């Protein structure tokens, strides 16, 4: 029977030990990289998605839209549907809505607004059911009488019921109208990830829903006024009507296993300047 000599066995064990050590080191390094990549991916995706979402919501806000502008929270009239008055019949206003009504959720509607030829907005609190917004051939037909091209776009013409006589100034053909949401954003303690800050969103007065989590205490909004170059932490009074840009600043953190330096937290900070396109 053949066998190993002691020397052969010792050499084999030593070589194996070296190999195992090397391979194990590589394995754990790889595992560490995997863990960090996962954390980085998670945090960056969180930052990216929340930034995109907030940007898409706030960029359509126009002049006189902000009702509250503080470092940790803001309240803004966000257009759910924006359009142009193309006919008036009795107390009803018929309008071409640029976005249609697909994105309008009835519970989100806080009211409607109208912008006169001087550029001033007038806002009126109302409900979706009371406005009874409806689209179709009736509105399209009325607007067609005003010269509107309705071919293939009948569904984009809407009626806003009982609005003309309840408003001052009274809408006229050619004026801009909107159905708006009273949108509320707030940074506060996260319910999903204890010890961090979350961004909450919802209709003003309702229970806000946590939109994003894992941020540090420096998260907040800042505001730039027309003709100014600096961003302010808080804007009040008549200056609310002059806001032309919003800055979202945050640092997101995610905790994983300890790395070789003893650290187990990955941080990612970002800033997004949101230009309000309807102010320009």
């Amino acid at each position, binding site marked *: 029977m*053949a*066998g190993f000599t002691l020397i052969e066995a010792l050499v084999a064990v030593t070589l194996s030990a070296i190999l*195992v050590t090397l391979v194990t080191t590589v394995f754990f390094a790889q595992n560490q990289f995997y863990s960090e990549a996962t954390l980085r991916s998670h945090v960056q995706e969180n930052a990216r998605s929340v930034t995109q979402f907030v940007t898409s919501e706030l960029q359509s806000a126009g002049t006189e839209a902000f009702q509250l502008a503080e470092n940790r929270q803001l309240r803004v009239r966000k257009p759910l549907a924006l359009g142009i008055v193309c006919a008036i019949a009795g107390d009803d206003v018929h309008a071409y809505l640029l976005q249609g009504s697909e994105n309008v959720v009835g519970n989100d509607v806080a009211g409607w607004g109208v912008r006169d030829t001087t550029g001033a907005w007038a806002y009126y609190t109302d409900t979706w059911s009371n406005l009874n917004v409806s689209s179709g051939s009736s509105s399209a037909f009325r607007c067609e009488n005003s010269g509107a091209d309705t071919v293939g776009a009948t569904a984009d013409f809407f009626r806003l019921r009982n609005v003309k006589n309840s408003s001052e100034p009274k809408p006229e053909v050619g004026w801009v109208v909107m159905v708006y949401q009273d949108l509320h954003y707030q940074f506060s303690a996260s319910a999903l990830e204890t010890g961090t800050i979350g961004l909450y969103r919802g209709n003003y007065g309702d229970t806000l829903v946590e939109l994003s989590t894992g941020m540090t205490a420096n998260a907040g909004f800042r505001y730039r006024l027309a003709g100014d170059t600096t961003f302010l932490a808080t804007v009040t009074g008549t200056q609310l009507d002059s806001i032309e840009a919003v800055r979202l600043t945050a640092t997101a953190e995610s905790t994983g296993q300890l790395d070789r330096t003893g650290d187990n937290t990955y941080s990612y900070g970002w800033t997004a300047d949101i230009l309000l396109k309807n102010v320009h």
Partner: protein
Amino acid sequence: MCTDRFLTAEPAPSPAGGGEPQGGFALAVVMVLLFAIGVAGATGYQIVSQEAQLSIQVQEANQAMTLAQAGLYRFLGEPTRGVRDSVQYSLDGGTATVTTRLIKDVEGEEKIYSVRSVGNFADPRYSNTPAERTVTQVAIQRQMPFTPIGAVASTAVDSYYYNSNYTSSRSLWPVVQGNDISSAADCSEGGSLDVDGFWAGYGHTIYFDADSLTGTPVVASGQGGPGAIAAATGLDWSLLTDTEYPVDQEGTLGWPDFGAIPSDSFPVIRINGSFYPGSTFSGRGVLIVRDRFRPADGFDWDGLILAGYSDYLYARMTIRGALLTGFGATISVTWVYDEARIYFHYCNVLEAARQLTYLEPVDNSWAELF
């Protein structure tokens, strides 16, 4: 008893079927660990790859948004006349397709359009998954893109109007009328607007007899130079004289046969230099002369004439509309004498001005479509 063969094992068959037997566990351990590393590596690659893909998609979406916005701005801002139904721009590796829809068209009022721009962009590495973003805005078509200020306007340092046969070879006197000679029979707005007889940029000295120079007021002087006439009329001279600005006729070659084209057509004609037109170049519409405008005998025009400057207006010529000069330069004198006949004709001016209409975005009407 001690033996040098204290460990034994079943001899493994050699690869060649002979030789010394082999044994051990290092290979197996290495194989297992390499497999584990491979799995971890593949998973890590998958995550990084997904992250890269997400990042590219976000970049594509942002680029598509930029393209859509650029298309909208370009459509509303580029030098153009009227309103086009659809136009596609190739911009920075992507496209922006802009379409318009008429929302309001009431006689005598400004038209309102919805303008929609779709930006489309695909990363060359992933061209089968293009990103698309759509923005829209309301725009008004300005029907009267300028303000009529006078039957004749000039920014010359001195503007002289002589109601006399200044040159001995002429027997008639000049006529300049700022009071509208059109009537409701010409158009619904006919006879509704009287303007200055002579709008003088500086006009230190103006001689006239009231009989043949009329207007409301007869003379408005001390208005200023090219900047003042541009501000007063609302016309963008650099735009109108930009060779990119589309016109119906450029230069004199192929001059329109006004007897053959529809009688209600008011073409826009631009001369990129000086122009001394006689009867051959009579007609109607908007005549833009970049430099010097000096009509000769027999010239007859219905509509609007805009010129860089004009020094001598004495020929046997007639303009029914308005002659506005001095957009390009302030010269020393504009002379009006002898047989010049210039009547403010609001209907002709309106019709001419409608050829210069453009789209103007309505504030607070921008939206992104999702």
